[in-house]
């Protein structure tokens, strides 16, 4: 349907275009640290409605005492509508975020979703020497870290004896953590509404769970198997019949929860999961895949390669793949930063710290898919993963460190490829139970916590 032109505005009321309204309510967590109105440097909240039809987007700024907004005049041509809420600090950093994506329906729509503080939950490696010092072991403690400042905000203790492995976000609803106690594996579910904890026993210890708010079904990889669980019902749905070997390096799930992918370190390197059918297929989409990033709100994933200069984009819905090739596009752990229109990856670099690169994907004038690679800066030793926040503007890369090098956090922030993305690497947040020790006649801070896996609320 053709829209009404403003120059014909006098006749506008009679032009007959069909519209709908979107009513938005922002809720908050009962957990104070997640409530940006209580605990972040929140200066303003912006609600953005984007319909699928061209030009069908509108923005409303809310003062901090207002939690609702109604948007009139959204074209009925928009089959789906995405609603996002951004909380900004004084400087314009995204300190809070919430979203409800792919709203459909022809009539007026009311939607409610939580605006959460932009926090990362980070699991840690075991540190056996501290087990009997009366302080919870690092492997059973999650750090909750502010993405903007990289400051330690709080800690979340898993059940006693838990050894956490992988953390992931199920939108703004839950954080999922795979862990084991002894030889028994579990999927832990942390509610972001109240920090309540439930667990689902798995068939064995596993590495990483993937779930989306669009579906209750989580896919869990690791321990030589792919298993499924209904997170809402708290039940183990079973496993894919065939064993799946290799170490699970990375994973992503489409926003609707219908499809998921894992990257493993065995040929062919990528596993595609049809969640509804609980089916798994292995594909070779790129040589020696290093990591995978998911485009925000969509179902396009990007695989980086450790062994070639290619980045392959795959649409999970139909499996279509495009391979982008560039001069120096190799990369390990990866995340797709929508704000930068780039894949952020880490490249191993001989003789120095690994480097963070932005891989900008584009089509040349002749239609050839290409990659432009930009080095952004260094991480600390042993970077583990790259996770992007819900807004798609901040990428967090934790590094485990080594005997000689402390653990650290790298963050990359940018909003458009035309702006130079900014990178900052700092040491991992200190903890009150960290101790000072003497090494080579120097007093050094011995950091108890070494990050193992991270996820950002609403992030990917």
């Amino acid at each position, binding site marked *: 349907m053709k*829209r*009404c*032109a*403003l*120059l014909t*505005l*006098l006749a*506008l*009321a009679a*032009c007959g*275009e*069909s*519209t709908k309204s979107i009513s938005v309510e922002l809720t908050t967590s009962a957990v104070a640290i997640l409530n940006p109105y209580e605990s972040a440097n929140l200066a*303003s909240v*912006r609600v953005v409605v984007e*319909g699928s039809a*061209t*030009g*069908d*987007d*509108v*923005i*409303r*700024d809310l003062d901090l005492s207002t939690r609702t907004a109604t948007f*009139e*005049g*959204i*074209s009925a041509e928009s089959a789906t509508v995405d609603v996002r809420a951004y909380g*900004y*600090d*004084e*400087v*314009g*950093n995204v300190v809070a975020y919430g979203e409800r994506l792919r709203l459909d329906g022809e009539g007026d729509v009311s939607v409610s979703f939580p605006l959460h503080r932009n926090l990362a939950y980070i699991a840690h490696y075991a540190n056996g020497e501290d087990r009997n010092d009366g302080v919870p072991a690092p492997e059973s403690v999650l750090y909750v870290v*502010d993405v*903007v*400042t*990289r*400051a*330690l*905000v709080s800690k979340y203790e898993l059940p006693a004896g838990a050894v956490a492995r992988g953390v992931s976000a199920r939108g703004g609803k839950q954080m999922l953590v795979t862990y084991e106690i002894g030889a028994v594996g579990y999927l832990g579910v942390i509610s972001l509404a109240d920090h309540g904890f439930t667990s689902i026993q798995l068939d064995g210890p596993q590495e990483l769970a993937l779930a989306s708010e669009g579906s209750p079904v989580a896919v869990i990889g690791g321990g030589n198997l792919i298993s499924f669980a209904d997170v809402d019902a708290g039940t183990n749905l079973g496993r894919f019949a065939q064993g799946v070997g290799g170490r699970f390096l990375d994973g992503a799930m489409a926003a609707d929860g219908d499809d998921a992918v894992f990257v493993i370190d065995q040929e062919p390197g990528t596993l595609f999961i049809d969640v509804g059918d609980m089916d798994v297929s292995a594909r070779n989409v790129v040589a020696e895949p290093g990591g995978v990033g998911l485009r925000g709100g969509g179902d396009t994933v990007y695989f980086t390669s450790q062994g070639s200069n290619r980045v392959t984009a795959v649409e999970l819905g139909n499996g279509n793949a495009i391979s982008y090739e560039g001069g120096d596009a190799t990369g390990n752990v990866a995340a797709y930063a929508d704000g930068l229109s780039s894949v952020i990856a880490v490249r191993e670099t001989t003789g120095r710290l690994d480097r963070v690169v932005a891989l900008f994907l584009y089509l040349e004038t002749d239609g050839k898919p290409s990659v432009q690679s930009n080095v952004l*800066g260094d991480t600390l030793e042993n970077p583990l993963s790259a996770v992007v926040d819900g807004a798609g503007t901040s990428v967090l890369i934790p590094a485990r460190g080594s005997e000689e090098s*402390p653990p*650290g956090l790298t*963050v990359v*922030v940018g*909003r458009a490829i*035309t*702006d130079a993305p*900014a*990178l*900052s*690497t*700092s*040491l991992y*947040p*200190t903890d009150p139970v960290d101790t000072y020790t003497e090494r080579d006649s120097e007093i050094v*801070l011995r950091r108890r916590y070494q990050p193992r896996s991270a996820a950002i609320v609403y992030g990917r």
Partner: protein
Amino acid sequence: MRFAVPLAALLTAGLLGCSSDDPTCAPKVVVTELECQTAQDCIDEGFSNLTCLDGRCLRACTEDSDCVIDRDELDEACVNVGDPQPQIPICENLRCRTGCPTNACGAGQECVEGRCAFHYESFEIRDGETFVDLTTLGFVAPQADPNEPNIANPLTKIATLGVAGCTLGDERCAGTASLGNNFVWLRYRAASPKGQADTSFTCKACACCLDCLANPPPSGQNVTLATCPGAPDRLWSLPQPLSCPATPPSECSSVCTACDACPNAPPDTIGDRLVSCEAQAAGRACTVCQDCDTSVAMCRNTTCGGPCANPNSTECGMCVDTMCLTANVCTDCISCGESANCRAAMMSTAECADFRNRCLALGDDGCYPTPRNYDRAQLFDLEQALTSPAIDLSAAGPMQLRFDYVGFNVGVTFKVAEQGTDPAQWETAPQEVVVQFCGANCGQDSSWVDGTLVDGSRAVFPPTSRRDNGLTLGSQSTLDWRAGRVVVTIPDAVKTATFRYRFLPALSDGASVGIDEIYVRPAE
């Protein structure tokens, strides 16, 4: 059903330059009063670069650069048609706005990059200048104590980005600033435990007594004039004890009793930063050096009588040095101290041999230097802090101080060095930088009050949650600056014609803070 857009709004947009004849090539704007329900309404009017924000066609932003219209936003046919954006807007409250000078600033304010401010400092080199330092920018602390000269904090400096490839880590190669090339690198100068000693000469017995009290010998090993000062296994050096024993050990009794027999020194030469045993030694003179003093006084009046008609002249000083202090008795006065210096430096020159022989010949009548006072090593807060120039806020309304900072590995606590106190007794204090304000009498520390952040808390930074970040000077990035903006409310009581702000550091040796982009501006 869509709502109509008022005609008045459309006309307003037209006044801003959106020509309906050729809207594509008309000057682009990022601020309009055009009403809208969705961005399509803006697109329909030729504002394809705007969105619909709070019912108006505007451009949303998070920083000023978002408000700059790039050439690539224009249709190809329009790229060379005039200035794409006649007014440079700014990003305020997440939306582009027209800044100054288009919107004029109030009295007493300057326009800085589109924003009005009573004071702005980014530590950059001014137009026409080739050099910048804190003094030329007016960051000079008012006199703290009229009776003592100010001691500057030499560690706080203007740091600069540095040339490409320079070795990061000092103020000449300090990495990214918040904006521009420079920022101020704020550090804390700790007091040395004692400070720089000013010496006079005391008799051998008193030198031995002080040395014995400062370096107690093993129990039962009595110190005698024959072997002191120093010990068979220890060369003598100027003792600078942080404390004196309440009860002198019996091993020192002999020499300390002998010290009581030495002549008194003039009382006004004994300073007030001495511990008791230092004061005891400084309170006694050495006969040989007294003889030297007498000889010099005579020489000054006779041999140097001409040049010393003006006793403070350079010529008088040179004459005394060359003609008077070379007298045997004066060489004897310094011989024991100089001989000890020679031994400490393992020098065996003829001059050292002469000093040694002279000292041996003096025996128990030898003279040794002893501290008679110490320079002040403890900075007043006013000297420690980075203090702004005076700013006239007498006619200002609600005001705020806004700045960006980066903490370089600031820890949680540190030991505060206190001059003249045993380091073991130094107190632990939080590491922090306090933002303080003053309205009048800013040379007195009592005139300064702590600022408060907009949330009402005390204006200190970095927050405790952001310590030990491992950042070193030069490793900071734009992100680190963006994560560290501070806004401090300026209280009405200090809004005078001589308002000043200061950053008062309390930091450990390895910690520092970078500060940049300081605004004193109307509160929003």
